[in-house]
């Protein structure tokens, strides 16, 4: 009798503990939606329902042309879902996701290597774009699909009302931000506007993503390539100078230069620009459709980023690659799909239509973003990408490096009294540890 009660109690305890385990159990139990049909490709993209509609059009055209069917899955929490599919060793055939994740996927063995020559039309993609998909072992692990570079969005109507010029340097930007914050550009009689929008949270590495352009303009690199490895470079004099400037003038400067909730903001909940209470936003061009709708085309302008103390106006470039899942056994069909996606027809379909475009700057060099869209603002973005942009290094697993950089920057910007130099020194040591984990530290 006592034994039974004890075993019941054990069962109850186990049940309770089962309820508690959160992420430890991830990965199991996710059903595979993969069709055994060799003529059907399972394709994943990181898309919300709006951009998924654009992909629907693209894949419909592909099926019509080639007869290969596409089982299309737009996935919002892409990496979480991908990890669970990886744990049952059954990946989607084709994935379209961020360029910066290539190193991470490759280090986990999730990707098939790609020979550029096997993709029809590979010569229409520039060498610069192809170079961004080379892995640590010198082989390609992705096919460029869409590229973008950050540009500065400015409230043109506000700027003209205050009689100020377009910002060309960091000093101009700061002066303009202060004017937007203090001189009531919206004319409602109260001080309720901010100079600049900043997604400054460390969550998902946002502050590193946003701040990278400022680092580049200050002549800073997060990692420096050395031989076959890398060395962290966040303790350089340029880094100390740049981060100090950002901290002093933006985060700990005059009130209203950036929006007050910057330190906990991610892009999704940073709507000050489209809500009409902030005057500038350094961000990606995909926001244009949102801003056109919320503010109207005439109210804002798209400008190249102002130059920093290093004299350049380099911005962060990123984009999306096409990846082939490891061990999927449909190489021919996958190559056919990739060839279609980078062809002028495939790229144009993805850049146009009534829904959010999924190709920003085309990787196909025969296309011109501004011409395809009949919108000269896109030539600013294309020019920034082609002439003044730097990507995060794609070969190493950059995910931990971006996250650690974001954690450190967020902390430095939060504590206004803290010492920038020691904060960056600590970050540099952490980054060295990350590189060492990947056997890349030189």
């Amino acid at each position: 009798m006592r034994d039974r009660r004890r075993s019941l109690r054990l069962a109850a305890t186990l049940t309770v503990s089962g309820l508690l385990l959160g992420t430890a159990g991830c990965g199991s139990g996710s059903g595979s939606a993969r069709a055994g049909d060799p003529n059907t490709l399972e394709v994943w993209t990181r898309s919300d329902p709006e951009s998924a509609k654009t992909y629907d059009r693209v894949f419909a055209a592909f099926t019509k042309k080639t007869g290969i069917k596409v089982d299309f899955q737009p996935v919002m929490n892409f990496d979480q879902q991908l990890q669970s599919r990886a744990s049952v060793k059954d990946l989607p055939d084709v994935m379209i996701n961020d360029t910066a994740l290539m190193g991470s996927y490759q280090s986990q063995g999730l990707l098939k290597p790609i020979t550029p020559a096997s993709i029809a039309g590979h010569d229409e993609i520039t060498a610069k774009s192809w170079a961004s998909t080379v892995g640590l072992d010198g082989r390609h692990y992705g096919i460029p699909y869409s590229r973008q570079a950050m540009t500065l969005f400015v409230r043109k109507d506000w700027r003209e009302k205050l009689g100020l010029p377009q910002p060309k340097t960091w000093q101009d930007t700061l002066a303009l931000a202060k004017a937007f914050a203090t001189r009531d550009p919206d004319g409602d009689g109260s001080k309720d506007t901010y100079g600049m929008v900043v997604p400054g949270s460390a969550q998902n590495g946002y502050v590193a993503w946003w701040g990278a352009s400022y680092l580049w303009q200050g002549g800073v690199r997060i990692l420096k390539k050395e031989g076959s490895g890398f060395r962290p470079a966040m303790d350089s004099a340029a880094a100390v100078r740049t981060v100090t400037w950002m901290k002093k003038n933006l985060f700990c400067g005059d009130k209203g230069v950036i929006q007050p909730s910057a330190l906990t903001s991610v892009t999704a909940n940073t709507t000050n620009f489209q809500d009409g209470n902030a005057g500038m936003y350094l961000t990606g061009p995909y926001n244009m459709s949102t801003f056109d709708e919320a503010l109207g085309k005439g109210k804002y302008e798209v400008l190249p980023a102002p130059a920093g103390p290093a004299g350049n106006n380099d911005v962060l470039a990123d984009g999306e690659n096409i990846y082939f899942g490891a061990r999927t056994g449909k190489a021919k069909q996958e190559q056919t799909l990739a060839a279609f996606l980078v062809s002028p027809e495939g790229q144009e379909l993805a850049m146009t239509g009534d829904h959010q475009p999924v190709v920003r700057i085309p990787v196909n060099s025969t296309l011109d973003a501004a011409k395809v869209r009949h919108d000269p603002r896109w030539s600013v973005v294309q020019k920034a990408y082609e002439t003044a942009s730097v990507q995060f290094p794609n070969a190493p697993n950059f995910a931990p490096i971006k996250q650690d950089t974001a954690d450190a920057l967020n902390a430095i910007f939060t504590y206004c009294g803290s010492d920038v130099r020691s904060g960056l020194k600590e970050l540099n040591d952490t980054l060295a540890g990350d590189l060492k984990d990947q056997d890349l530290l030189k």
Partner: protein
Amino acid sequence: MTATVTTPGPRRARIISKKAVLPWLFLAPALLLALVFKFLPMGKGVWLSFFDVRPFLGDKWVGLDNYTRVLTDHRFQDAIGHTLLLGVGMSLGGIVVGSALALLLEGQARSLKIIRTAVFLPVVTATAVVGEMWRLMYYPTSDGLINSGLGLFGLGPVPYLDNPDTALWATMAMGIWMLAPYNMVIILAGLAGVDRSLYEAAAMDGVSLWQRLRHITLPAIRPALGIVLTLAAIRGLRVFTEVYVLTGGGPAGSTDVWMTRAYTLGFTRNDIGGASAASVVLLCVTLLLTVTVNYLRKRGDVK
């Protein structure tokens, strides 16, 4: 002769075994579901915590490396403090506010039922929605609901979530707001069981309100409080969504709790082994805590 003596033994044994099997038979479907959806993934989680997880390159056995890495990481160490503070604060706050609500809203009147329903709403609302709502309420300018209220008294605006000194407390306040009504319901059930004649007798003896609470109500709802305390402690330690939605662990990691760290490790840094180890540590701590609370409660009951 011997046969007649021994027969009752086996027969009784058979009856007992049938009796013993029957409940398990009824439990089987539920246990099977629990096995597939809880225990197997859980077991796998524990198993993975000893590996460098790389499904396509072959998992690499690393022994206790993941555990050492997690336990020596200063961000996890900071997270322990935040988790405990948040857990204890939310549990106690939830019980105090929940009890107060229960005492205020006990009764049969129709208006009380409506108010009770209204008060219970936070519990049935998705945490993500509540988080977004509180983010708007905490908005650090006079546009935010709370700051506009403070503005009426000439105070503020206070950057609740963007100041590392207040962010954790602001998160705690939201947690209490969500937790208290749930506690209220359990305590209400406890209050319903209080013998009315004791109140009447106390009234005749002319005791004060405080004495009535202290010597009649509190002892009567002790079991309910025990349950509430256990649930709150478990919930407090594995707090995740509240923090993730409200602050994402920031600013400067000042609201990072154990589970947000584990999540970042698993899904931003793709270190599933480390995340599993962190989760297993949390599991052990929670188990220990649950058993201890249960033990103390039982000992108290015997007394």
